[in-house]
């Protein structure tokens, strides 16, 4: 029954978080800081993973293509894989590891260092001040990172396909364009937005309620990553079922 307690406390924390900020200027400044921390500072890892993912999907698909399967299937598969699953799901999972642990350890350190209490004593809504900018930044910036990932993944797939000689550029581009449905992109970005919310809010929850010392902050950070990934996977299944079935 412990999970009911956690759900209740999570909802309570969200209620505290989504309140009007005390000072608009300070809030905007915090939001910009978080956009940089979650977005700009994640571009490198997102780009690296996406390039390799696109390349590997291209080579794996080419390995299956033989006889009656047309070569343009490579471009088609790379596009579909990147847009439907790899970019919108795998990138938030990676971000849950990088950004989520950072959020949880930051808030956890502030909690055990009494900085959260200091904010409360000043009359500041600490949840709103510390967590709201993170959630808004996560929700706003994750779709852009995923779009970047899609582009880089498909681009690297095309480059590897041509460079290794498994596909001509014309075949790849043909396959990439064939049977394209804009809804797929809308579906991908919708679930990405949800994952951005899960990643930031769940990590914030674990960090905000950390207690004890450095060891507990570390544990909170681990729990934040694990539960973010679990919930992203569950949400992925639910959204996919609702959207595609």
């Amino acid at each position, binding site marked *: 029954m412990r999970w009911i307690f956690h759900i209740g406390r999570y909802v309570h924390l969200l209620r505290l978080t989504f309140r009007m900020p005390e000072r608009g200027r*300070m809030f905007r400044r915090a939001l910009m800081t978080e956009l940089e921390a979650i977005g700009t500072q994640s571009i490198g890892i997102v780009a690296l993973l996406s390039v390799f993912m696109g390349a590997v999907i291209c080579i794996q698909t080419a390995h299956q293509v033989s006889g009656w399967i047309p070569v343009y299937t490579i471009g088609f598969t790379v596009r579909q894989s990147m847009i439907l699953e790899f970019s919108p799901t795998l990138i938030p999972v990676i971000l849950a590891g990088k950004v989520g642990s950072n959020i949880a350890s930051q808030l956890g350190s502030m909690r055990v260092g*009494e*900085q959260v*209490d*200091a904010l409360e*004593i*000043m*009359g*500041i809504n600490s949840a709103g001040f510390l967590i709201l900018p993170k959630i808004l930044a996560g929700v706003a910036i994750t779709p852009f990172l995923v779009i970047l990932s899609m582009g880089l993944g498909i681009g690297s797939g095309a480059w590897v396909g041509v460079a290794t000689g498994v596909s001509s550029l014309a075949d790849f581009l043909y396959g990439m364009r064939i049977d394209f449905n804009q809804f797929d992109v809308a579906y991908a970005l919708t679930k990405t937005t949800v994952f951005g919310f899960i990643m930031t809010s769940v990590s914030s929850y674990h960090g905000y309620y950390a207690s004890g010392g450095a060891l507990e902050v570390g544990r909170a950070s681990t729990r934040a990553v694990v539960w973010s990934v679990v919930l992203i996977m569950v949400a992925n299944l639910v959204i996919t079922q609702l959207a595609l079935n």
Partner: protein
Amino acid sequence: MIELHDIQKSFGEHHVLKGVSARFEPGKVNFVIGRSGSGKSVMTKCTVGLIEPDTGSVHFDGRNFTAMSGKERKAVRQEIGMLFQGSALFDSMTVLENVMFPLRMFSGDALGQIEQRARECLHRVELDGAEQRYPAEVSGGMQKRVGIARAIAMNPKYLFCDEPNSGLDPQTAIVIDNLIQDITAEFGMTTVVVSHDMNSVMQASDSIHFVHEGRILWHGTRDTLLAGGPQELEDFVFASELMKRVRGRG
């Protein structure tokens, strides 16, 4: 004046506060002393609303803080300054920015005025020249002084200090004690200091409350403290050889 009426607080089966009633006088440094685990920190957190008491009430100048709405509490909290045991400074901000922080959140003044006020507070705690340094770059004693500067930046009516001398050498501890005493008189604040450091108690206290097993067992001044009291108080106060000698001379 801050008044506590029959505050009780339990964590599960563990009864930490068993009916605490106390009165902290304005313009005085009111010490709350007691052994580790006696409930003094929980009592302070209940007083400022960081922990909700199970029963009882807290009154700030007659205003029932416990019964207030969130909005009303927020207003009262802006009259409270607090120095935390670990200073609780924001690591990502400079010393000056830390002191400016509450002013930027609530004062509504222009940035220049806020900075001027923050510099005055830092000057008051003798930290001129440390404005641009980060908390990690200053000593523990300086961090405490930054914490005091931040606590007094909003001209609070009430000041709470949780173990202000923990981790400090005796000389620096005296500097902090004197500073707390001076600013209490200067600002006419109601100051509550939680401590188990008898040097501080003898140095800076105007009024002393002894907490034992979740109750206020004794209340008096540093003069009456030396005259003795319940056995638990004597065991606590005269635990060190130094205090035993002080008593012998008294």
